[in-house]
Structure formats: C-alpha cells, structure tokens
C-alpha cells in the first residue's frame, strides 16, 4: 500500500537534489561491480519510504524547534509557522533543484493525510456537545456552505462581467461556481489547528468545528456536480442534471454517514471479541475506520463524513470493550498520526505555493475572492444565526457570530481540490490555484494570527475546565430525565424526548449487543465518573503520598487482586470494614516485647534490603500477549523499594514535627481538600465537625507482622478483601525507648477513637480467632495513614494494573485458611501481652492469610517457589543482630475489612 502511495506523494528524486539531507547523495552505482561488492549503495530501493520518513522527521523536528520558545507559539499558531517553514523549504528546493518538488498531491492528501485527522476529530468529538448543537452545526454546514459557494461564485462572475477581472481569466459562470464550491468550504484541518490553541467556549468550538467536518459532504457534492457540469459544457446540462445534483447531495451525505455507521457497528462488534488478542485492538480501530474512509471514497460518498460518523459512533462501545492499554494506545497513536499529518499538510502547503509554474496571478480575482469569502461568510453567519436563534434555547450572540465568521478558515482541502481540476476543461485553473493559495495563506496566517487577540479583545467566553464531580454527573443525569419527563408532560417531543428515547434504545439493545458483558457495567456514566475520580484520587494521592504515607503503603504489596479493585471503592471498603470497630493505636502501641520487636526489625531489614530474586520460570516469548508477570512484578517491586527508601528519608526529617503536632489530621484533610483529592473519604471514626467530610464508621484494626512484605508477589494476586492497610511505624532515628511514651501521648489517636472502646482491656483478634497470627505493634506511632488514602493508593496501583482486564463481578472470596509464616506464629506465641488487646468482637476476625490466598490461586503457581524461597528469610530470628533500641523498626498494622466477614 505504501509503495502505491509514494508516487502520489510526488517525491520523485531527480538526481541528487535532496536538499534536506545533502549527505545522502544517492551514490548508487550505475552498473554492478564486476566482483562481489563489499558495500553497495542502494538508494533507489529505499528512496520513497526514506523520503517520506525524512519529511515527517523534518516536520517533527520543526515542531520541536517551534515549541522551544513558548513565546512564539503562544503568539503564532503552529499552522502559520509550518506554512512559513514550508515556504522556506520550498524556496530552498527550488533554488537547488531549479524546479519545484514535493508538492502536496491531492491523492496523498485525501488518501493518507486527511483520514487520520478526521478520525482523530471524530473519535474524540465530545458527542453530547455535538448532538446538543447538531441543528446549528447542520445548518451552518449545509446551508452555509451552499450559500457561500453560490454567492461567492456568482459574485466573482459578476466581478468578471463588470470587467474587474482580467480577460485572461477565461471562465464562465459554471467555472466560477465550481471555484466557489471549492473555496467556500471551511477546512477542518485549519480550523482545528487554530481553534485548538484559541480556547473559546465549547459551544462555539463545536459549532465551527462540526461545521467544518460536516460540510465536506456538501463540498464534495458541489464540487463534483459543478465539475461534471463544466466538463459536460453548460450547453448540455439539462434540468434533470440539476435534479440529480440535488439528489446526489442526499446520497453523498447520507450515504457517507451510513457507511461510517456501518463500520462503527462492525468495529464495536469486533472489539467485543478481542478478549484474548488484546494486542490487535488498536489496530482494529484504525483499520476499520480507514476501511470506512476508503469505502466511502470508493463509492464517491463523503469520506470525511464516514470517518467522522465511524469515530463518533463506535467510541462508546469500543472504549468499553478494549483494554485500558489499548485505549491509551489508540489515543496516542491517533493523536500522533493526526498531528503528524497536520504538520505535513501545512508544510507541504507552504512548499507547494512556491511552484510558480502552477499558478497565474490576477489581482482582481484574488482580491475579489478574498473580499467575497469574508463578506459572504459573515453575511451568511448573521443570517443563519438570526434564523437559528429563533429556535435556540441559548441564542448565539454577536460576539459568537463574529468569531464564527472570522473562524471560517480555508485550508488544504480547497487546495487539493483546486489542484485536481482539469486544466483542459477549466482553462482558468492556474488563476484559481493562485487564488486558492492566497486565500488559504491569508486565512491560515492572517486570520490565524489575529483570531487569538480578537477573541481576547472581544472577551469571548472561554472554555473553562473543571473537574467532573460525581454530583455534577449525577445531577446532570437527573436533569436530563426531568427534562425528558417535562417534555412528555407538556406533550412536546423535542430534543430531550428523542435523546431519552435513544438512550433507552441504546441501553436495551445496542449496548447489549456491542459491549462485552463485563464492560457493560462499568460504562455506566455515573459509575464511570466515580471510577475515574477514584483513580484520580489515587494518583494525586501518590503524588503527595510522600507527605502523609508511611512506607508500608508503598511496600506492602497488598493491592487487591486485579479483577476486584475497580469495583471496590474506598468508601465501599470503608463501609464494609467499618461498623463499630475500634482503631486505637495507643492500645496497640503499649503492647510489645523486645523479642517481638527484634523479629520485626530483622524481617524488615531483610525485606527492605533484599530484592526478590528475579524469577525466570516463565519465559514468555509470545508476540501476541503481553505477559505481565515476572518482569512487571519485579519492576514494581523495585519501584516500591525505591519509594520506600525515599519515604523513609523523608519521614526521618518529618518525624519530630509529627510528634509534636497534636492535630495532624485536620491539616492533612485540609490539604487534601485543597488539592481536590480524595475530598470525600476520610477515615476518622469520629471526624471533628470542622472537617468537611466525614466517615461514618470506625475501622477495624488488625495488626499484622512485617512478614506481609515478604509475601509480596503472592499478594498481588490475592483477593481484595484482605483488608486495608493501616500503618503505624517508627523511624529509625528516633526509635528509642525513652521516646515511646511521649509518642504515645502525642500521637493522634484520640481523634480516631470511637467513643466506647479505649479498649486496652479487650482482646485482639489475632489471639481469639485464628489465633496463630503474629502481631507486631509499633512503639511509636508517628503517623497514621487514613484508610481512604491507603485504599486510594491500593486502588491506584491495582486499578492501573487491572485495567488490562476490565473488572468483572468479583468471585466469591476464597475459603480462608489462615496459614501464617512460622516465625510470626512463634512470635505471637511468645507475646503474652497481646492477649490484653484481643478484641472478642466477631468483627475482629482476622483476615485470611495472604500467603494462602496467594497460593490457592491457580495463576500464582509461579509464586510458590518464591514463597518457599522466602520462608527461610522469615524463619530465623536473630535478636543479637540488632539491638532493639537502635534498630530501624517498621511496624505494620493491617486494618482489615475482612474482619467483618
């Protein structure tokens, strides 16, 4: 396919004139050397793809250079810079080669450069906004384009009749109408390039941009009809031809849209079944969209419309079906291709303008065209807006109209169309080419440069970005339903009514058919927002995590299993684990023995210092599946270790502050709020009134040993109901016996103690329930990590990794078989004081053993060896190695929500 394309790109290399890369002289030997050549230069075999790659490279490098200076790009749109660069490059080529090379060829443009841009814009079109304004968009696209074409063409013809256009321009009314039809269409590429940098409000943007996309059908029809009329000669055009012309407008536009929708349907349906071949998902998106484009092009339908509709139609279902990684891939590839194509288009436009052999100048025609397209555009916009405002809820005001008129940029589509004209049939082609180039340059450069100041000066409403909130999303849905209901009551079947109908149809049939069952659920919009908010919270929590989180959150690999995370939310976990349990760190803090601590210290040291051995059991060489086991886990582990270290160093500096601060919590909360993070969830059992959030339930506190960390890899697979990790730990520098009591007094536990149990006298679960589990408690609770944060963290990690497989209904929890590492059990046995703490309440049941859970999973078979490997690390207790006082001890307390179950 590429080879076929290359002649179209117009990159014939005549000799040695590759000016961009003079070192790449095609030194190909004319005749084969007599003997075996050690070195052969085969330029011609790679020439075409090489040049394509080089052009793209040059364009990309130019982009980089432009963006080196923020000042330049903030003033001058990129498209202008690229056109100017193209002019320069074209000049160089012309000067060196003595003839113009590397034109923007219509074939290349329509087959290769345009589709990615249109697909990108269609796929990422804000569909709700688009359909909300569909009426206006269609009006401007159809009526506006027709109006522009006919008035411009007719006015130019009038200009010629008035003698203002030189008689050299041999063109009749039909020729001018043809020219008018190709010059009148607002160009999506140019509009997108300019408007993306000018952040006008969404409504305005979608109207201008939607118009530029949808007017393609009209342009194509007008162009084709006029072209065939011109070729037939005006004398032979009959009345039926005019009728056919009108009919073809419908055929081309509706046909194009239909082709797009059919392919969108196919695409959505195909991606439903890619569960086992995730790797080709992005490819499918591109292939089918491109197939839609080519099919429409083949049938002489509106290809732009087809791809737009394809992207618009399939997005919802495709996004639901494909994996998260594929989604990212699709997004980036699409953006890359579109940006690449756009860059090349503008550069080639600049280069093409240099070729003086192609165009002929006529001042009357050029100036007349410039004036008419601006004038009629403005007039058309005003007239249409006046009509539209009679029907619009929110009228478009004058400023909007100014921007819309001024934003009618012409671009490469017009240029490619004018190049396509047949010089024999249209004798004035050269004049038209020159005029088109001037118009394109004028609109892109002059209007593109001035539209930003204009928008600023007119104080056009800018788009405002605000993060979606659950409330907004939910209430928006409510409003939709309310409006639909009110329309029902009033008996007026308007927009809301039909949208409601469509949504019900979509829910009942389309989504069922086109979405994977597992994906169907998470695509509910409210759920989706919720999900995204959770992820965002988690990510921003990580960003600031270093301040509030102790390392266990990072190093404890207690991420819930990948298929359950996405659906268990922070609050969900909280709620389940909550209900009246006690979080009393003081109590726990008081109970510890030296021996116990030494063990923990040891384990911590070991697990902190040792990387898990790299496992090589499964060598995965499949090209079709991205295996995500060993390597990834290793990476994650390294990451965790690094984070842990960083946090430790941070904490050691922070520690004292925390000790003296009696109210660390509100402060944290305040920061959270400010950052828009996790504003919702807090963990406090009894939040003070001044906190803006509250959580209802206290949390169960279960204390677990450091061995947690050892069972790293198995835990990544465990069921998520293993619990929330709550951390209380000491820093190495300050772990001294003397300080213990101090910290106990100051540490923030009072805030989190539920009223009833200050339960030093209560039993702790690990003794009562599956009593063989070890407890290590911190002597100094320097920080308490709010459960929500902990969970946020867990979710972030695991949701990131789980996105590959969309969450499905969680499997019932595995039978809990508490198997605890030997050392821990022994330690627990040696720890008599723990009995004091044991809480008899059933809600304090201990979480299932992580190790066992890990093992019982079939997929974690690879972990078993590691588990066994690790056991010895936990086993030996060597109290002599580290003296308790100076040891760097970490204590993990695991908050388990499993306790409730």
């Amino acid at each position, binding site marked *: 396919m590429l080879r076929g394309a290359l002649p179209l790109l117009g990159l014939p290399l005549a000799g040695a004139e590759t000016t961009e890369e003079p070192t790449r002289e095609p030194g190909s030997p004319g005749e084969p050397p007599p003997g075996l050549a050690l070195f052969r230069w085969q330029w011609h075999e790679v020439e075409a793809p090489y040049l394509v790659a080089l052009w793209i490279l040059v364009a990309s490098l130019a982009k980089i250079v432009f963006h080196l200076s923020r000042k330049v790009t903030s003033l001058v749109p990129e498209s202008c810079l690229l056109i100017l660069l193209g002019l320069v490059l074209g000049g160089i080529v012309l000067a060196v080669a003595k003839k113009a090379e590397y034109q923007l060829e219509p074939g290349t443009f329509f087959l290769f450069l345009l589709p990615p841009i249109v697909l990108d814009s269609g796929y990422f079109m804000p569909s709700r906004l688009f359909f909300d304004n569909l009426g206006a968009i269609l009006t401007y696209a159809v009526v506006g384009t027709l109006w522009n074409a006919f008035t411009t063409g007719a006015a130019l013809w009038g200009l010629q009749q008035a003698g203002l256009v030189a008689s050299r321009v041999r063109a009749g009314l039909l020729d001018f109408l043809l020219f008018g039809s190709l010059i009148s269409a607002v160009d999506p590429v140019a509009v997108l390039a300019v408007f993306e940098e000018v952040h006008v409000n969404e409504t305005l943007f979608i109207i201008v941009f939607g118009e530029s996309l949808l007017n393609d059908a009209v342009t194509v029809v007008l162009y084709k009809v006029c072209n065939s009329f011109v070729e037939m000669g005006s004398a032979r055009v009959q009345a039926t031809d005019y009728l056919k012309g009108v009919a073809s407008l419908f055929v081309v536009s509706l046909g194009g849209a239909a082709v797009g929708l059919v392919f969108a349907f196919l695409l959505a349906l195909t991606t439903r079944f890619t569960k086992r071949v995730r790797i080709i998902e992005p490819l499918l998106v591109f292939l089918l969209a491109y197939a839609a484009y080519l099919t429409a092009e083949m049938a002489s339908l509106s290809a732009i419309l087809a791809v737009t509709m394809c992207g618009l139609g399939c997005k919802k279902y495709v996004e639901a079906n494909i994996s998260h990684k594929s989604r990212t891939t699709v997004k980036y590839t699409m953006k890359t291709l579109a940006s690449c194509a756009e860059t090349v288009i503008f550069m080639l436009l600049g280069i093409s303008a240099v070729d003086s052999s192609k165009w002929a100048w006529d001042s009357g025609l050029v100036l007349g065209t410039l004036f008419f397209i601006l004038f009629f555009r403005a007039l058309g916009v005003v007239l249409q807006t006046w009509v539209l405002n009679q029907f619009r809820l929110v009228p478009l005001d004058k400023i909007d109209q100014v921007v819309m008129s001024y934003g009618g940029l012409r671009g490469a589509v017009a240029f490619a169309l004018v190049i396509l004209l047949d010089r024999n049939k249209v004798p004035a082609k050269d004049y038209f080419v020159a005029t088109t180039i001037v118009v394109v340059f004028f609109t892109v450069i002059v209007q593109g440069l001035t539209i930003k100041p204009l928008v600023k000066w007119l104080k056009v409403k800018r788009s405002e970005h605000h993060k979606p909130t659950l409330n907004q999303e939910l209430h928006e849905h409510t409003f939709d339903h*309310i*409006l639909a209901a009110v*329309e029902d009551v009033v008996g007026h079947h308007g927009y809301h009514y039909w949208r409601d*109908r469509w949504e019900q149809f979509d829910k009942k049939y389309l989504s069922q058919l086109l979405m994977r069952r597992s994906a169907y659920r998470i695509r509910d919009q409210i759920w989706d927002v919720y999900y995204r908010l959770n992820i965002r919270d988690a990510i921003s929590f990580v960003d600031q995590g270093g301040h509030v989180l102790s390392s266990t959150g990072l190093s404890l690999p207690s991420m819930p299993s990948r298929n359950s995370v996405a659906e268990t939310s922070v609050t969900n976990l909280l709620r389940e684990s909550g209900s009246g349990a006690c979080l009393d760190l003081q109590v726990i803090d008081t109970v510890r023995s030296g021996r116990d601590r030494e063990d923990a210290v040891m384990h911590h040291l070991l697990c902190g210092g040792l990387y898990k051995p790299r496992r090589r059991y499964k060598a995965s060489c499949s090209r079709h599946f991205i295996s995500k086991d060993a390597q990834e886990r290793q990476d994650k582990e390294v990451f965790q270790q690094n984070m842990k270290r960083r946090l430790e160093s941070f904490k050691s500096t922070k520690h004292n502050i925390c000790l003296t601060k009696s109210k660390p919590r509100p402060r944290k909360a305040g920061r959270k709020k400010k950052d828009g993070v996790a504003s919702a969830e807090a963990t406090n059992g009894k939040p003070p*009134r001044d906190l803006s*959030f509250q959580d209802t339930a206290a949390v169960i506190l279960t204390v677990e040993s450091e061995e947690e960390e050892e069972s790293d890899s198995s835990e990544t697979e465990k069921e998520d109901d293993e619990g929330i990790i709550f951390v209380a730990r000491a820093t190495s520098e300050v772990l001294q016996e003397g300080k213990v009591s101090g910290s106990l007094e100051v540490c923030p536990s009072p805030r989190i103690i539920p009223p009833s149990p200050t339960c030093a006298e209560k039993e702790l679960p690990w003794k009562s329930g599956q009593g063989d589990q070890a407890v290590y408690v911190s002597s100094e609770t320097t920080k308490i990590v709010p459960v929500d944060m902990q969970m946020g963290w867990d979710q972030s990690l695991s949701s990131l990794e789980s996105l590959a497989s969309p969450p499905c209904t969680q499997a019932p929890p595995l039978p809990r078989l508490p198997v605890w590492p030997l050392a821990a059990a022994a330690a627990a046995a040696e720890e008599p004081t723990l009995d004091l703490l044991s809480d008899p309440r059933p809600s304090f049941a201990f979480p299932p053993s992580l190790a066992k859970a890990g093992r019982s999973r079939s997929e974690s078979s690879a972990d078993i060896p590691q588990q066994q490997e690790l056991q010895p690390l936990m086993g030996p207790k060597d109290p002599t190695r580290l003296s308790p006082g100076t040891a760097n001890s970490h204590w993990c307390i695991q908050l388990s929500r499993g306790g409730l179950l």
Partner: protein
Amino acid sequence: MGARGSHAAVIPDVDSIRRETGFSQASLLRLYHRFRALDRNKKGYLSRMDLQQIGALAVNPLGDRIIDSFFPDGSQRLDFAGFVRILAHFRPVDEEDPGMRDPKQPEPLNSRMNKLRFAFQLYDLDRDGKISKHEMLQVLRLMVGVQVTEEQLESIAERTVQEADEDGDGAVSFLEFAKSLEKMNIEQKMSIRVLK
C-alpha cells in the same frame, strides 16, 4: 394577538397565572390544551393516573418522582394553575437584567434557585431539607440500572454525599446541593425552549 387573547380567556384566572408564571399567552393556551387533553374524564383537574398514562413517563426512571412533584403536599388533584406552576420552573430565563426586577417581587419560578429547588426535592423524599445518603442511594438505584451492584451503588452514593457535604452532617442540604452545581449552567440546562 387579539384572537389568541380571546382564546386564552377560556383559561380560568389567566391573568394571575400569567403574572405568577411569566408564560406568554400562547404558551399558556398550548399548555391549557395539553392540560385538557391529559384530563381524560374532563373532570377539570388532573389526577396521578392521568399523568401516569403518559407512556414515556412510565419508563422514565424518575417518572414517579416527577409525577409526585406535581402533587405537592399529598394532594390528589392538580388544577391548571398548579400544573402551570410546576412547568414554569422550566421556562427559559429571561434575558432581562436581574437588577431591573422589582426586589419586592418574589423570585420568579424559573430562577436558578427555583430550578435547583425543583431538582432537589426530587431527591429529598422525606422533605427534611437534606438529601441523606439513603435518599441519594435510592436515586442512584433508579438511574444507574442493574449492571452496577448494590455495594457499588452504595459507595457511589456515599462518595457523592461526601463530595457535596460541607458541614459534615452526612447529608446534602439545599445550599450544599446548589454549591455542588455552581459551575453548571442551570439556567440553560433546566430550561425547555417551547415553554417560553
């Protein structure tokens, strides 16, 4: 206009209704026809049944609640004035400068706050001026559909309440409700064009 006026005269209390709701005579007339059409047995008022007959309302997840909102205070009869009064919430906001309005006059029914209040009382079933978590959950249950499990719904509800809840009482008061939507163009979103 004269012809319309004479038609509109059929409506009882047309002037006071117009003053209260701000509807144009043409709109009022159209609504009156609709009112009569909905009133099956020509009893002069609408009952719940009449509204429930509307096919599309039956499938609207909030349909029942919206019907209920037409019958404030547990009444069973909806006269035309009440009918129009509810619909007036969805009249597009006039262009006029709010400062020009007589401050002594009550806020028009289609003001932002009244639009919001209408939405709010759809949530607030027990009319205590607060959307509790439970009430939020009920709405979510209606809207989200079967595919999300109950637990997830609860967590969404919880989070939604927490997000809007500023004073920490575990429920969303009307002010908090309005605040959570302060960035949204309610005047635009909660208006229907035909109800001029």
